[in-house]
């Protein structure tokens, strides 16, 4: 399985209450009872993920349809950092990757 890309899946939309609030977004996570205050691009990333399990590249493709992400290598590194933070917060699950 080495070399398999990990998959990421956001917690279900039912599990989060999302309230945009003038420049930032509040996310109430039902499972943990924690309120998160987040700014761009976190709400956009979660919206793009929907409830699908995606690799970073698949997520990048989705985001690039709506946003100008500039340099692809740099964009992937930034996205990876944000996704890791979301995994730490419990809002996104990291799943075992599958070989294509």
């Amino acid at each position, binding site marked *: 399985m080495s070399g398999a890309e990990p998959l990421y899946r956001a917690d279900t939309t039912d599990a989060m209450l999302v309230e945009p609030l*003038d420049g930032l977004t509040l996310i*109430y996570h039902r499972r943990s009872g924690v309120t998160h*205050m987040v700014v761009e691009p976190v709400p956009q990333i979660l919206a793009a993920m929907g409830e699908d399990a995606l690799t970073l590249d698949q997520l990048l493709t989705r985001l690039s349809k709506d946003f100008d992400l500039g340099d692809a290598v740099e964009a992937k590194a930034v996205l990876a950092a944000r996704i890791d933070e979301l995994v730490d917060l419990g809002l996104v699950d990291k799943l075992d990757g599958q070989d294509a």
Partner: protein
Amino acid sequence: MHEFSAQVGPAAFRIGSQWRSPVDQLAALYADYPKPEIPDFSVRLEAVSMLRRFIRPSVMIEGDYMLPDAAPLPLAQALLAAEMGMNLQMALGWRRHLLLHASAVEKDGKALIMTGASGSGKSTLSALLGQSGWRFMGDEFVLLDLESGAAVPFPRLISLKNEAIAAMEAQADAARFGPLMEGTPKGNIRHLMPPVDAIARMAEPAKPALLLFPRYGHNWAVRDVAPGETFMRMTQASTNYVALGEAGFTAMTRFIKTTPARAIDYQSGAEAVSLAEGLWEQLA
């Protein structure tokens, strides 16, 4: 055990005391409040020890909800101990509303809510407005209804501290004040009964229409407060936001999205009243 009970807004309290004097003081100050049948909370004022009860009487606050290391107070401050005990029960035990550490007054069915740290002047400002055409709703807690978002009054005794005592003595009927307690952990304290109509109408909620963050002792200034900052400050100002979970989140976000917020700096009570009334005309 001497006993006293009173209904304050939606909450019913029973106070038990080993001494008669604090119960008599409470009964006089709460004379206008209804007597509940079944209390939500019990507070007991107990002697630190039997021996000390006679040598140097000191009061421990005991209740359904407690802080483990609350210091005892001298018997002369038992009224303060009772009030602190009642506040503690609300702060730690109330779950029926989103509880904001704030003061509020009402006009035309709409509520002006003021919040800030101790010494910000929110209590004095609500008392001053309550003497000048507004209905006093509370100087310590504002309760937000989890379904409707309405502000529910909690008009307990107004707790005046230090300079605020003289300011209100000039405004309110002398018969409505409790004893002056000097040298308490919060400085000098004197309780003031809220206006009669504030108590008579304590079951009438009001729609939040303006949120102010007053700050006493600074040059006159008004500043916009962004919703994100308001959210952070209000979650800090709520003792039960986390305990209420999703219901607290929903009530808090609705309150912040529908209520304009401003920070005001002021040097005198008259200046603060004028600032608050000006912003009310403009925004509420």
